[in-house]
């Protein structure tokens, strides 16, 4: 990491397996900002900038994080994997196909982040039951679907009936994704935790 202009930084990020040069960045720029504004990685969505909605979910050294709550400069030595880096085939393809086939996509703005989160969940906990799936995905807000079709898509991947016949192969079960999903960790570092909320705002 170096700074040519005072207060500006230059460094490299590993994005989906490719080294990308970042030059002249401000220290305060989040990984989300650098991805979207400097590297044109627009599959990572910007919706709240507070780690609350999960639209910018990526894997950072195999751990699920919200890119908006990570300083990009802190990610200089880490491997960042976005939805594109999950690969054209394998478990992520089954998740994507299941989302489309089972109606889990409406406006779709939450979908790339959810695909990352679901792929990560199923890599770590392939047999997760509905309660665990719901709790784990509570960091990814979807305003369109009411989550019913998302849950259905996840269960379909688990049952090996992710996509439609002939469109994608059955999901691999029980195996690791090869993305370095850290077994035994909760995978929620840096994520706002919205699970189990039933209270209301602003009523102090």
């Amino acid at each position, binding site marked *: 990491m170096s700074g040519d202009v005072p207060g500006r930084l230059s460094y490299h990020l590993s994005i989906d397996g490719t080294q990308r040069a970042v030059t002249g960045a*401000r220290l305060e720029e989040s990984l989300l900002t650098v991805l979207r*504004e400097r590297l*044109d990685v*627009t*599959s990572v*969505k*910007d*919706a*709240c*900038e*507070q780690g*609350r*909605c999960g639209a910018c979910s990526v894997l950072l050294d195999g751990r699920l994080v919200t890119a908006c709550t990570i300083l990009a400069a802190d990610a200089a030595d880490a491997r960042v994997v*976005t*939805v*594109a880096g999950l690969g054209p085939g394998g478990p992520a393809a089954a998740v*994507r*196909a299941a*989302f*489309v*086939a089972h*109606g889990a*996509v*409406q*406006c*779709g*703005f*939450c*979908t*790339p982040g959810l*695909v990352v989160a679901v792929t990560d969940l199923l890599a770590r906990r392939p047999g997760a039951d509905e*309660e665990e799936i*719901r*709790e784990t*995905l*509570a*960091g*990814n*807000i*979807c*305003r*369109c*679907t*009411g*989550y*019913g079709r*998302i*849950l259905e898509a996840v269960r379909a991947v688990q049952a090996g009936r992710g996509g*439609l016949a002939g469109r994608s192969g059955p999901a691999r079960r029980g195996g690791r994704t090869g993305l370095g999903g850290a077994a035994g960790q909760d995978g929620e570092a840096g994520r*706002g935790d*919205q*699970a*189990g*909320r*039933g*209270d*209301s*705002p*602003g*009523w102090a």
Partner: protein
Amino acid sequence: MTGRARGVGGSAPRPDGPAKADGTFAYAGDLSIPGMLHARTLRSPHPRARIRRLDTAAARRIPGVAAVVTAVDVPGVATYGLIVADQPVFAATETRYAGEPVAVVAAVDAPTARRALAAVEVEYEPLPPVVDPEVAAGLGAPPLHPDGNVFREITLRHGDPDAAGPVVVEDSYLVGMQDQAFLAPEAALVVPAADGGVDLRLATQWLHSDREQIAACLGLPEELVRLELAGVGGAFGGREDVTLQVHGALLARATGTPVRIAYDRVESFLGHPHRHPARMWFRHTATAAGDLVSVHARIIMDGGAYASSSPAVIANAVTHAAGPYRVPNARLDGLVVRTNNPPCGAMRGFGVPQVTIGHEAQMDRLADRLGIGPVELRVRNALRPGDVLPTGQVLGPPLPAREAIEAVAARPLPAALTAASPVTARPGGRGAHADVARVRRGVGYALAYKNLLFSEGFDDSSTARARLELDAGGRPAATIHSACAEVGQGFVTVAGQIARTELGVDEVVLLPADTGVGSAGSTSASRQTWMSGGAVRGACVAVIDRLLARVARRLGLPPEVVEAPRRALVIAGGEIVGAETGTRLTLAEALAEGPVEAEHTFHHRRTTALDVAGQGDPHVAFAAAAHRAVVDVDLDLGLVHVVSMALAQDCGTVLNPLSLRGQVEGGTAQGLGLAVMEELVTVDGVVTNPTLHDYLLPTAADVPMLDFVALTYPQPDAPYGVKGVGETPTCTATAAVLAAVRAAVGRDLRRVPVRPVDLVDLAVPPLGGAPPGGSPTGE
């Protein structure tokens, strides 16, 4: 997937689904052009203030700032608005809500633009904000705008307004301010054009309405303002109004450079109109047997600083205030008022969710008083086709209101919560602080109906074009052009299904929605499948008519057959068959001499405005829905867990079962949110929670799997017999959850969202203020 499933009635997948799932689908905020400028908005921190001085010189001097634009730079009309043009493009001499735009800046990057905002010097003289709608409507209130403080007042009288039954229930209810909270904040890419015009790629619900307002403010003819829909990350009513469109266009024209203008989440919460907060008073009277005799209601809605769609929202609230019940006598009054609160306008349900909360709480109270069940009372009074509504409108078929409430009541109930239940099934979830012995279960019902399409005489027609030709491989292929805004609801799916069904082809390309074709109207009011679906279908039918006429000419059939070729020619199995001659021609052969094109404009039946007594024929059609909610409430902590939701909904003919399911599940979740978590809180006119940290949205841990029953009675005057499905479940979900929480805790809950303090603190304070217009029993 087979051809059948890709046509009407099948669960065809979204054509944009794969691109959305792999992240390559471009939303408005993802668009960029090399060299474009980045725009940011300066907003008033004061809900009401005079602007004493506004100086942009220091901001302009910052290196990298290309332009700073304020009210003095608006060349055309200084105001815009959906129904009434009362909202200034920029606050000029006075600000009327906290968050109102005062200036916009374009700079080489967003940080520079933000620094420039801080350098704009604005001297405000704060004035006391008027934030209570009843005060704003009162005699002593200062006029907050040259147009006055009342957006619209409706006094509906039906039957004998003084008639009353022996059994009377009466109470007041409050609804908080809900936000659409679509996930993708507002954004547009605006490019100045060589012809002096401007091109916008943006997220919106209604391209042509935006164009009309932008052109007026820019002082340009409409044909020089061209809009193309970019990817839209949800809308729910919140993109029906102009927000950043004019600002971006002014900056692009001022700089001669493409401009990306975008909001962050806080600005999104401040920038678009919200669902109206409501104060409502109801009095229902009935016979001892349980037949409704009269309904009196007074509804006051807070429209905030500018009109938006308030005049239409209050009409919906008043005309639906008695619910889907036979009510021979009614006095229904509504008032929507200007205050210094954030502007309110369209949100899914459009005035009906608020009154449903009131009329359904009243029905439960009436059932209690009569000693009969809540389902039985609703069944007894449910509207049937042929009944006269409080407006005098005769209800057309179908309206399976009774069938809906009976269907949800028949669904199996979920198992009881026990100590063996997973911790995540308890109120509070993973926090694991609920003592199962202190959890109470409640079951609640709600029945509602919601108008479909625009009302009160508005002809919200939709135009579409269809083209049939041979593709490069010599196969018949269709192209559809509609300006219908796809905001996530699935019009792109249904349009393709309709074209495949009508044209008998598999290959359908949907052109980008833009202003190069006639208006499709707004993606709101549950109208696009009916209206733009009808336009696409009509265009496809016309294409086939023209193709058949061409074939008839080629076959040398007599002129009267060429005029009406379907008398002699039919399409079967991808072939054109002469019914009598036995001639067979493939579509490809018929298309060999060139493409066939047609345009169709679809209209719904005409309606009428309300007269001075609120009488008329205002609504095109209705759909009914019923929800049953089951909740568990932690009595110690006041936390609510929604255990199950069952929905029976009047859907008309189903064009896509999978899309339908997505709509009703999403609509239910938004209603659940309003019931127990969602409220945009204002203090003295200032929003205190404009972030997703503080404005709570339902998560996967909050929304149960929906138990859904579709009631599929075809709508006679709609294409294929469809009904709009997006809004109705949002109307009933909130009221049903509220009823269930009431049943669980045995307490009178009269405001939403229900807060923990409403459930654990027995000393609930009385509702603020009297019902609108003084004594509720006056007159």
